[in-house]
């Protein structure tokens, strides 16, 4: 099940510093939304507010609303832990738990939720998640080996398997391919295409070709200068953004004249 996200008038702060200003956007379910923009424009920061990971940094705060199917993620009775369980996240650098085997890595999130999961259910979930991440065939013979022994691309797919094993509604990806070689990148991009059948996917990327390849809609963020807040410049169908954007700065950026 995938769900839509509506962001309204969102301001993001680090202490007194306004990092991202006044973002309003809608993220469609069962689609891939890409965030592009120059370094430091706040796209990763914004991404982290979508699963309340932002607030683990001391002094970080948000104003405005982030609604998932009409429920404000920052509402008073919403549990941030539950938010993160329903909005999965994949990070820039692959981060499997080094102390756990491949199997335990996939089960890490599930084990937090219910301690007792039957052996057969666990095996099924491990296989299903690893298949979902296109990793099963590569690791099925070494599920008990540490996850840190895999290649970078495999580790990243293991992290995706770990994220989808908890059955989230939304999957956030923060530059998931920036630490990977081209072949691993391609594997992840193919995977993203398959995953959008079941999840709402949001991906931050520095690579405009990647945004063009994988996403349905693209949002362009920009920053006026150092110390100024990042802003959402425009958001549209990916084809529109890359062919005939409404804003001059978007056109400059996607055509490589900038940043």
């Amino acid at each position, binding site marked *: 099940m995938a*769900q839509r996200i509506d962001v309204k008038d969102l301001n993001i702060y680090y202490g007194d510093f306004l990092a991202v200003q006044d973002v309003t956007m809608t993220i469609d379910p069962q689609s891939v939304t890409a965030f592009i923009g120059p370094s430091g424009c706040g796209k990763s920061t914004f991404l982290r507010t979508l699963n309340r990971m932002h607030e683990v940094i001391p002094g970080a705060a948000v104003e405005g609303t982030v609604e998932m*199917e*009409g429920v404000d993620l920052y509402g008073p009775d*919403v*549990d941030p*832990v*539950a938010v993160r369980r*329903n909005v999965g996240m994949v990070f820039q650098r692959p981060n499997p738990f080094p102390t756990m085997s491949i199997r335990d890595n996939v089960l890490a999130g599930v084990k937090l939720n219910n301690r007792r999961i039957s052996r057969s259910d666990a095996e099924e979930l491990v296989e299903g998640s690893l298949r979902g991440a296109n990793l099963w065939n590569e690791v099925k013979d070494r599920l008990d080996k540490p996850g840190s022994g895999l290649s970078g691309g495999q580790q990243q797919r293991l992290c995706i398997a770990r994220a989808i094993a908890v059955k989230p*509604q939304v999957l956030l990806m923060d530059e998931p391919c920036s630490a990977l070689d081209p072949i691993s990148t391609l594997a992840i991009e193919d995977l993203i295409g398959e995953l959008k059948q079941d999840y709402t996917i949001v991906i931050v990327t520095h690579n405009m070709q990647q945004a063009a390849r994988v996403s349905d809609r693209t949002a362009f963020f920009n920053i006026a200068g150092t110390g100024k807040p990042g802003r959402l410049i425009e958001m549209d169908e990916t084809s529109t953004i890359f062919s005939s954007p409404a804003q001059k700065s978007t056109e400059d950026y996607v055509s490589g004249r900038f940043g």
Partner: protein
Amino acid sequence: MTTTTAAASADATELTRALLTAADPRRRRVDRTMRILIWGAFAVAMVPLVSLVWTVLSSGFGRISLDFLTLSMRNIFGGDPSGGIYHAIAGTLVITALATVISVPIGLLTAIYLVEYGRGALARAVTFFVDVMTGIPSIVAGLFAVALFTLILGPGVRIGLIGAVALSVLMIPVVVRSCEEMLKLVPNELREASYALGVPKWLTIVKVVLRTSVAGLTTGILLAVARVIGETAPLLVTVGVTDSINFDPFEGRMMTLPVFAYRQYSQGLATCPGGESATCVPDIAIQNGWGAALVLIVIVLVLNLAGRLVNRWFSPKLR
């Protein structure tokens, strides 16, 4: 049509709300329990530590005076409240200084060896045994020094030098460890830049590596000094005790602050035939002990703070 979509969206909202507010009560409880336990551990630990500092401050402060800091205990008997710890301060400083003079060159050079030259089995062995040496009990270090000097000078000799050697055994591994950490912080680019200019390796180490890390090294050494200056047991068995001032670590017994505190404590109450008076205080020995403890703790604190400040103020910004 619109009503069904509206109903569907209302359903979705309800479902989402259920998902997002569904906090598993067991997990919440565990999380809260652990939070309380961890705050509790901290609170429990603070009680003895605060009590310790407070006791030393309050019990020792009353005894501190100019006389206490500048007189020895020579010809002081019973409950006589005159006399002081000058001889103990002098002994502590002399012995610790001597131990530092022995330890720092060996420790620093060993650290240089491990960071700049160390490879292979020898370096691994040195690293391993430095770790092991940090665990040598202080009393064993004292016994070693006694055993060593018994063979050289014969049995029963008690001089400051033996104590300094005992302290060195405890101090060298600490110096090696902290200096090693500091030298590792020097970026390799600096060394390579120096080699590229044709500077030989030993000059690179002396002029670039040591120069860059001098603040950190000073900190490490000060902390190592702070670590051994309060050692009691090895000095008890190596240096003996005395009531007189002795600055010569090669001749005669010396008193040190921690040993003084212990000796005064173990003397217990004095008998005052005429009751408590200006010349006879029954618990003067215990007061002396607390006074010496306070001076000792102040020295340790000052060394620690000095170490931190040196590092903060003088270390170059590497990153």
